[in-house]
C-alpha cells in the first residue's frame, strides 16, 4: 500500500532482546513495517540509552507516527525523558504493553494499515490475550 504505516520502536534493557523481538514481529507481520530496536546502553551493557531511543524514534517515523514499547519500568523513564525534548512528540505514543506480545500485535495492525491509535491499542490489549 502507498500510505506509510505506523512505525514501532522497541526499547529494551537488552540489545539482544530488542533485536530478537523486532525480528520476530517482522517475521509474523510480513516485513512491511519499520520496526526499530533500541536496546542496551551506549557501551553495549544492559540498560537503556536516550541517544539510541531518540535515533530509533527518528528512524521509525515513516510519516504515520510511532508506537513505543518499553520492556521494564526504567525504560519508560528513558523514553519519557527523550520525549520531553523531542520535536514531534505528538506523533509518538508510549504504550503500557507486554513486550513480545505487544510488539507482535502492534506490528500486525500496523501492517494491516491501522492508524497510530489502533496500533497503540493493539499493543495494550495484548495483555489480555491468553496463550493457553
Amino acid at each position, binding site marked *: 500500500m502507498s500510505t506509510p504505516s505506523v512505525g514501532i520502536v522497541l526499547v529494551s534493557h537488552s540489545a539482544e532482546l530488542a533485536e530478537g523481538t523486532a525480528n*520476530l514481529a517482522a517475521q*509474523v*507481520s*510480513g516485513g512491511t513495517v519499520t520496526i526499530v530496536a533500541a536496546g542496551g546502553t551506549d557501551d553495549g551493557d544492559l540498560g537503556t540509552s536516550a541517544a539510541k531511543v531518540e535515533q530509533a524514534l527518528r528512524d521509525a517515523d515513516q510519516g504515520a507516527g510511532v508506537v513505543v514499547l518499553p520492556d521494564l519500568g526504567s525504560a519508560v523513564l528513558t523514553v519519557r525523558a527523550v520525549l520531553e525534548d523531542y520535536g514531534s512528540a505528538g506523533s509518538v505514543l508510549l504504550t503500557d504493553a507486554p513486550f513480545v506480545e505487544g510488539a*507482535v*500485535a502492534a506490528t*500486525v495492525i500496523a501492517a*494491516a494499515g491501522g492508524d497510530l491509535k489502533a496500533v497503540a491499542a493493539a499493543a495494550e*490489549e495484548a495483555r489480555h*490475550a491468553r496463550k493457553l
Partner: protein
Amino acid sequence: MPANCEQEITLTGDLHARPAGALAVAAGRFAAAISVTVGGRTADAKSVLGVMGLGATSGQHVTVCAAGADAQHAVAALVAILSEATKVGG
C-alpha cells in the same frame, strides 16, 4: 446491506506464528467483522494473538465467518491464506 459469509477449510499444516500473522494482516484490511473458529473456540481474525491462541493444528477444520459489506471477499481471501500459509511450518 451487510453480507454474511461462512466457509470451512481443513488445515494442511499447523497454524503457527507466521501464517497467523499473514491471516491477521489480511483480515485487518477488510471492514467486515471476521472470526475464525476451531474446535469450538473462536477468535477475532484481526487479532494475531487470538488466532495464535487457538492452537490450530494440521487436519483440524477451521470455519471463517465474516459479516459486513466486504464479507465475501474477506472469507475468500482468508481461506486462500489458510490453505497456502499452513502448507509450511511457521
